[in-house]
């Protein structure tokens, strides 16, 4: 779609929308790094200097980037690496090893991955993946061989650093940090984690070898910054092929952000989480509603998207239950009220349900025991209820103790919205006396 013949070329609206969505989706889904890190300049400089020293001077370092999820730890690291590799001196020297605590779940796998990423396996053919012990000795020997001035510096990036601390004896961490504190091959160990107490996880010897450099990423934007961010994220830049469309779009975004209801919705999101990722999620939902027939985001779209974001998952599931299952849930709620959250079993629930039926004296909901059992099991599968102690299988199914996994508010909310809910059931649910 190279339609850049002239600046004022008018593209068909459909075409524009497609391009718009492509650009914005790329932006919102983190496929593009920002040109410069916002709000974390100091940290960026610190990390860049540190890694530069490793790459250029051959100084070993270790550092942890700590911050809550969505704070931009990986973004920061990627930005730093991008800036670092712009320098040819660093580019030609630096070797990188990327590990993730969720992928390399034990040291054996991690070591194999390191060997693979360092291309050391070529040295000895496939034999390096012999035993774990052999592998460790091999890698340590490799790192020991090098020294500060002659060997290439290696950058170890450990994503989810805290998970590495759960490996047996913390062998990998000890050895990496030990290398970083001794005159061996220069390495930089960069860990990213969201746990603030990560240092307490380290064993004392490992801890002593860690340099205790922590870069905290605790972004604390104000609401106005948050709003600005929304606007910039949605605005189109000047190099959009169709100038007129982009002008219109930007104007519509501006009016959108000035809208009272939109501000309210965004405020609520901001209150809930300052994380930009959740905001991007919201904007994505809005963006997918834009079409050729409706080439702008309207406040109503945002409201609806926000509703979707805040929707209660369990309450939504309740809407899909049958009347019988709903009745069982209500019976459980009453049992919970009566017994103050004590666990119950099928028989109790059934009795409660029977009481309701007797009062109403109609046989509309008169079900056989097996049917009720089946409905009960279905609820268990949906995890509306869960057994108190899953390991005890000896007791008969009817008498297994269960707990309700729903809050009262969720039950009531679901009842309000349940399509064609019988009034007697509704009344039963509202009544205080089961």
């Amino acid at each position: 779609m190279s339609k850049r013949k002239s600046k004022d070329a008018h593209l068909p609206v459909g075409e524009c929308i497609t391009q718009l969505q492509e650009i914005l989706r790329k932006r919102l889904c983190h496929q593009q790094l920002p040109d410069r890190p916002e709000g974390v300049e100091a940290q960026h400089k610190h990390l860049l200097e540190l890694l530069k020293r490793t790459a250029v001077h051959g100084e070993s370092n270790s550092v942890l980037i700590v911050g809550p999820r969505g704070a931009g730890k990986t973004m920061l690291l990627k930005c730093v690496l991008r800036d670092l590799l712009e320098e040819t001196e660093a580019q030609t020297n630096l070797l990188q090893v990327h590990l993730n605590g969720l992928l390399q779940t034990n040291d054996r796998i991690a070591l194999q991955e390191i060997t693979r990423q360092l291309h050391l396996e070529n040295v000895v053919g496939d034999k390096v993946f012999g035993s774990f012990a052999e592998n460790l000795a091999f890698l340590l020997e490799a790192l020991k061989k090098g020294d500060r001035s002659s060997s290439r510096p290696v950058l170890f990036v450990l994503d989810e650093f805290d998970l590495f601390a759960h490996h047996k004896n913390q062998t990998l961490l000890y050895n990496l940090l030990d290398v970083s504190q001794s005159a061996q091959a220069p390495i930089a160990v960069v860990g990213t984690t969201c746990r603030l107490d990560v240092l307490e996880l380290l064993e004392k010897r490992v801890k002593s070898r860690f340099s205790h450099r922590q870069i905290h990423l605790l972004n604390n934007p104000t609401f106005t910054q948050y709003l600005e961010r929304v606007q910039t994220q949605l605005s189109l830049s000047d190099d959009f092929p169709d100038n007129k469309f982009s002008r219109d779009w930007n104007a519509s975004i501006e009016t959108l952000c000035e809208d009272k209801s939109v501000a309210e919705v965004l405020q609520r999101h901001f209150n809930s989480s300052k994380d930009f990722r959740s905001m991007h999620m919201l904007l994505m939902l809005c963006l997918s509603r834009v079409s050729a027939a409706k080439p702008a985001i309207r406040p109503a779209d945002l409201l609806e998207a926000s509703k979707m974001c805040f929707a209660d998952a369990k309450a939504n599931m309740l809407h899909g239950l049958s009347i019988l299952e709903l009745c069982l849930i209500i019976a459980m709620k009453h049992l919970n009220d009566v017994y103050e959250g004590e666990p119950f079993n099928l028989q109790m629930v059934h009795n409660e349900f029977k009481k309701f039926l007797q009062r109403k004296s109609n046989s509309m909901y008169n079900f056989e025991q097996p049917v009720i059992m089946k409905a009960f099991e279905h609820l268990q599968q949906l995890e509306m209820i869960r057994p108190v102690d899953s390991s005890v299988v000896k007791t008969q199914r009817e008498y297994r103790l269960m707990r309700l996994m729903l809050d009262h508010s969720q039950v009531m909310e679901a009842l309000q919205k349940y399509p064609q809910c019988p009034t007697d059931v509704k009344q039963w649910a509202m009544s205080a006396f089961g």
Partner: protein
Amino acid sequence: MKYFTRLRVRRVYKWRGAPLSFNRKLKTCEYGSLDISVEGLPRITVIKTGEHILIEGDDEDNPYVAKVIRLFGDENGKQKKAVVQWFVRVSEVPLSKLKLLGREPHPQEIFYYQGRSCDDEVDAESILRTVEVKHLDGAAPFPDSDDRGTLYVKLSWDSKTFKAVESEPAPASSCSPPPCPKPSLPPSPPCSPPAAAPASRGPARRALPTPDLAVMRRAATGEVRYCRATMSAGNAATAEAESMHSVTKRSASKCLSAKRRGISARTPGIRKKLELSSPEKKSMISEDLMSQLLDEELKSEVMLAQRLSLSPPQAVPLKHSLTPLRKNHRAPTAQGSFPLKPSAVVLNKMSLSEMNGSPSSARLDSTRATTPSQKWEPKTLKEPALGMLAEADNETSPMLPVIATPRSSKRKSAQLVSSRIRKQLNLLENQQDLNSDGEEEDEFVLSKKELQSSSDDDDEEEEAGLDSDEEVVVKKGRNAAAATSKQRTRSLTRTPRKTPKKKITPGTPRTPCRATPSIPSRSRPARLPANVLEEARTRLHVSSVPESLPCREQEFQDIYSFVESKIVDGTGGCMYISGVPGTGKTATVHEVMRCLQHAADVDEIPPFHFIEINGMKMTDPHQAYVQVLQKLTGQKSTADHAAALLEKRFSNPAPRKETTVLLVDELDLLWTRKQNVMYNLFDWPTRRHARLVVLTIANTMDLPERIMINRVASRLGLTRMSFQPYSFKQLQQIIMSRLNKVKAFEEDALQLVSRKVAALSGDARRCLDICRRATEICEHSSADSHSTGLVGMSHVMEALNEMFSSAYITAIKCASVQEQLFLRAVIAEFRRLGLEEATFQQVFVQHQALCRVEGLQPASVSEGLAVCQRLGACRLLLLEPSRLGVLQRVRLNVSQDDVLYALKAD
């Protein structure tokens, strides 16, 4: 009742014949030969001086190789000793030094040992049998014979370097028949004690153009042993007595200190003096000269000339290394001179002819071998004549010890001839002298066969491995193939071999251990520090090795004297070193080892072997055995096998073992349920022959009491040392010494850092890290505004804050409104319940109430759960697994006060 045990067979050792001489002062008798018979078997092996023997060692498959120089015992014949010249097997040379060889060692290769750390006096009862040893020319290839029992000498080894041994012809390497004096030598006086003299320590006689015959004779007959350098030829008699005295004294003191058995100490303190007064090198030179002179006397100047011409590149310095061979060959000639023994007559005859033949036959051999290759062109005029002589000799005496001289047998034919002659020789020997060596294999039928076969197997295995490795090298050279091709080549090389190699399995290739992994080297050189701050930062890095370790002088001294005394005494022991991380335990031990190594290099103390293992650097406690074995011998094996081998190594007597110093770092990780790893590590040093010093390092002072069972703790002993955390003054001193006059810090700033760290942990690493960070901060701030350029208080304060302040409060301050509300709800619920724990459901009720109070729209359960999970991920809250949903229990990970403080502040 009969016991069926698998113990080794009992051997009975007896002196053969009457003592040759008797030393009245020391009450020792010199003997010419020793009979070894196996209990229950009629046959007897005779060990004579000058023969090569195998001595029981720690590795049954590879017994030690040595050459008998002298045999003696005490009056009543209870103690039997032998003075030997050691040879070192390939496996005994440290792996790191083996690289100096520059080629793959032959599995049957041995090295003439010139080090002095080994006691050359051994218990005669540890002698197993004789062995065939051949001397090879340095350039000659190893013969490809199937004879696994034969060993080859090419080089000498003085525990530091390899030196070439000159291709010394036959008599030096004569194996089975005991050599006799050369015909031209007049018979020595019968009264002279035939102490097998490797050399006289006479003054350097290089200048002497013609030998003093009397001295020569005496030297040849081995009268003069360990003579002082000041000894002149004139007063040889007194010198002789003196030397004899000192020799036995020396041996006595050695016996006492090293083995603590037998002869009581006469002058225990003499050891050091003796070592000083008899420098090995000097003696070597004199030996060399002596043999040269002897050769002259024997009218074999030709040989000398030839030898000199043969080795033009290896000129004077190599002379020392050439000597051992001559030493070997001198000793037999000397030993052979005792007359008047009925049993020796036959031998005498035999070796008479042999003596005639041996030098010449070797030459013959060599000429045969080398003439086609045109290598030895610069020959002296007399050479052909000698060759002829040799040929004549060859005709007259068919039992030439040509076996020992395939040094230049590049051609198969030469080898063939030699082996044929050997066979003949053996045959003849068997007929003539039943006691001779050729038959020895048959004698020790029961025990020896086993031993032999196993050792043979081993040899084969080793050889096969090495052979293939050699081939690999060739291959590499040819097509520059990487190590990956090793596997293939090995399998190729294995096929043509005839010998069965059952122990080699294709599944255990040596490739990984042989390969040398390394991080690729950088294309651009590392930049050097540009300014003062960068310089300071480099110096302050933990990895930079300081010139000295300040503040640990006392500990250094203690460890040094402990290890040194153990090395000097040749005993073993354990030491336990404890201290919190970052107090310099490992650094101090390494420093001690560096110093000791230096001392060993300048020969102040006997050489030793330092190996290091780290509990954290292995995957399993039992890997400790594997690593120790690999570092000791270079072998690779499984943990169980390694444990067995080490057990054997440390429990069997091994007279010429170097002391091993083993550093076990992070000892606590070697803990196993049965604690057998720890048990073995501490048990080995207590063995009589182990000569093992174990230094263990761990963090906790009471580790022995806490995790060790009694028998382990008891073996560890009470030699303990604890490294106290550094005080602030010490930390300051450490930084100062590291900075070493680089002025980068203000005085106050340093004091602040050291005081702060000393108060917290006393960890020197922490201290250095903070200082480094402070230099960075200083660098940044000085870029902004002009400042002194020194690291000041403010920079240090900032660094300290960065490292020691907890981020919880900031994290709470930065949290979103809902998150803060949730934390408040948690505290409210805790107060209501009076517990420090609540379920999410309970907290959520509070949360919704708080939302209403704050005028916010109440959150849904899903949203609340998400908030809760986010706080849990940061570990502000401790949560149960999220699959429990609303039922999960919630706890605070921060104190309530902290939360309230953080929430109040804004």
